[in-house]
């Protein structure tokens, strides 16, 4: 029952990692995670859709700028960004998470729009918040932030920012 948060999770040895569509399949707290490369991404997503993962329920990204030491299966090069897609199989009632490494030098990844049109808004949100370009997306514009905004707020090197509050009419009291 006791929790040991400081315990470092040992990476699973190479031989034990099973493959699904040529990509390593790992387990994260009881949830299935598939690590695909950018080159495999579109192809694997199509095959997963054929396997029954017909709904892309969520698409988001993580900026791992300040946390380089994360555990990844062997053969997966850690990059700065990671696009995370949560898939849902309605028939067999299971979930699968797909993680794709996206390098900082070329933050771009193919869009899932043709396969899962429902990711349209989610991809726009990731573009807005992380500056990751989804090639093939029909409308790659900002969705939450104003059009003329500089920077991508959820990147780790984007300051939280403070707005200096100027109390007006203080002297007038």
């Amino acid at each position: 029952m006791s929790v040991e948060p400081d315990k470092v999770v040992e990476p699973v040895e190479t031989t034990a990692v099973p493959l699904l569509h040529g990509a390593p399949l790992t387990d994260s707290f009881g949830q299935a995670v598939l690590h695909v490369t950018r080159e495999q991404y579109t192809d694997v997503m199509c095959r997963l859709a054929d396997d029954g993962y017909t709904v892309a329920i969520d698409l988001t990204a993580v900026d791992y700028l300040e946390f380089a030491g994360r555990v990844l299966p062997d053969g997966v090069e850690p990059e700065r960004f990671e696009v995370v897609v949560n898939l849902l199989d309605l028939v067999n009632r299971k979930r699968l998470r797909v993680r794709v490494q996206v390098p900082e030098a070329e933050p771009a990844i193919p869009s899932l729009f043709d396969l899962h049109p429902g990711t349209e808004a989610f991809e726009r949100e990731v573009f807005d918040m992380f500056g990751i370009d989804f090639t093939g997306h029909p409308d790659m514009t900002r969705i939450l932030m104003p059009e003329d905004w500089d920077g991508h707020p959820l990147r780790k090197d984007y300051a939280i920012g403070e707005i200096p509050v100027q109390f007006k009419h203080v002297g007038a009291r």
Partner: protein
Amino acid sequence: MSDTTIDPGAPWTTLAPTEQTGEGAQEMKRRSELGPRELLREVGSVLRMSEAEVAKLGELPPAPDEDQTMIINMGPQHPSTHGVLRLMLELQGETVLRCKPIIGYLHTGMEKTGEQLTYMQGGTNVTRMDYLSPFFNELAFSMATERLLGIDGDIPERAVWMRMLLSELNRMSSHLLFLATNGMDIGAVSMMIYGWREREEVLRFFQKVTGLRMNHNFIRPGGVAADLPPGWRDDVLRLLDMIPPRLDEYDVLMTGQPIWRERLQGVGVITPDEALALGATGPVLRSTGVAWDLRRDLPYLHYDEVDFDVIVGSYGDAFDRYAIRLNEVRESMKIVRQILDRMPQGDYRVQNKKVTPPPRARIDESMEALIHHFKIFTEGFKVPAGEVYVGIESPRGELGCYIASDGSATPYRMHMRAPSFAHVQCLPHMMRGGLVADAVAVISSVDPVLGDVDR
């Protein structure tokens, strides 16, 4: 005074809405500036059409005049847009040809804020996202945190049942508010008063339990914040006695009324394929006949031990979505009755010194307890590195919480999968070809919460 001069004689129509405000490319373009890909996004994507077919769809219906469409702007201050949703509509006469939702007016960077707050404080942040169902936000966040901590199996029974009780009552209050606003949007103004009145009764119970009507921060990692107050059972029973006859009144007032049915039936139709492709969940998906409810299909808490029905529609129209929510209130009451029977005695939070602060009485007598309490509330507790996604069935659909942890006391990344965010992108498909007056009914039937959309 600004230095721009306005020619009073200039016709106002020369300015496109895109020129009147400064947001540029997010907005709907004039038809003459459209490329086929833009049309594909708006009409053809879900239907898996070729670009040629889409271009044909994008052509205007036959009409005597050339260029007879008009782009109008609806919202963000429009009263029926449930907050600050803004729609650009292209109209031909009264028919909606295209619709583009524009969101972000309520964006406050809550996911960024969530990275600065400890897991202990995170609940105060997430509870404000979908402000009509705060318990669900807290529940998703807490379940994700507990999963990372590895204590998801250790939550005491009473806490689990309390979470279910509050969730189902919250589902009732949220749906009652939907019935109120849906009635108001469509013209049954008295329904607005009734819906808010019943919701207030539920919120009164929440206030008694948590101290607050909304934004409770009551469900926390490790359990809940406090035990149920004395007399809670009588309060819940009073609610369960009071609401069913009032739901029957709603049936008389709305469900059976020919005007109500005319107004909603066949409006805002979405097919099962479209709904699934667009990531719709909850009542929007169930209205198309897809019986998908996470409480039954991927059970969490103890939903596999209670008996309830998943309400599905068959036409995917606004009336089905209304009827589903109305009947889900009844199903929730059925669940609440079972929870009342099964509510166990015991602890309301996990007794794990890492995540649980010591009881108040211990602080008076033990220095260590005081230090422990202080450290938990200032530094928080560390959560093992890793990433996890937890999805639950909120009143609006699948509410998911994705947390990536780097082993510190704050989430490295906290993302909420908001059902309303996915549902807003269903609006263009539901509105296409309908009347502009039905646009209001369609927005209302989707029940978006803009705090959830923009976060």
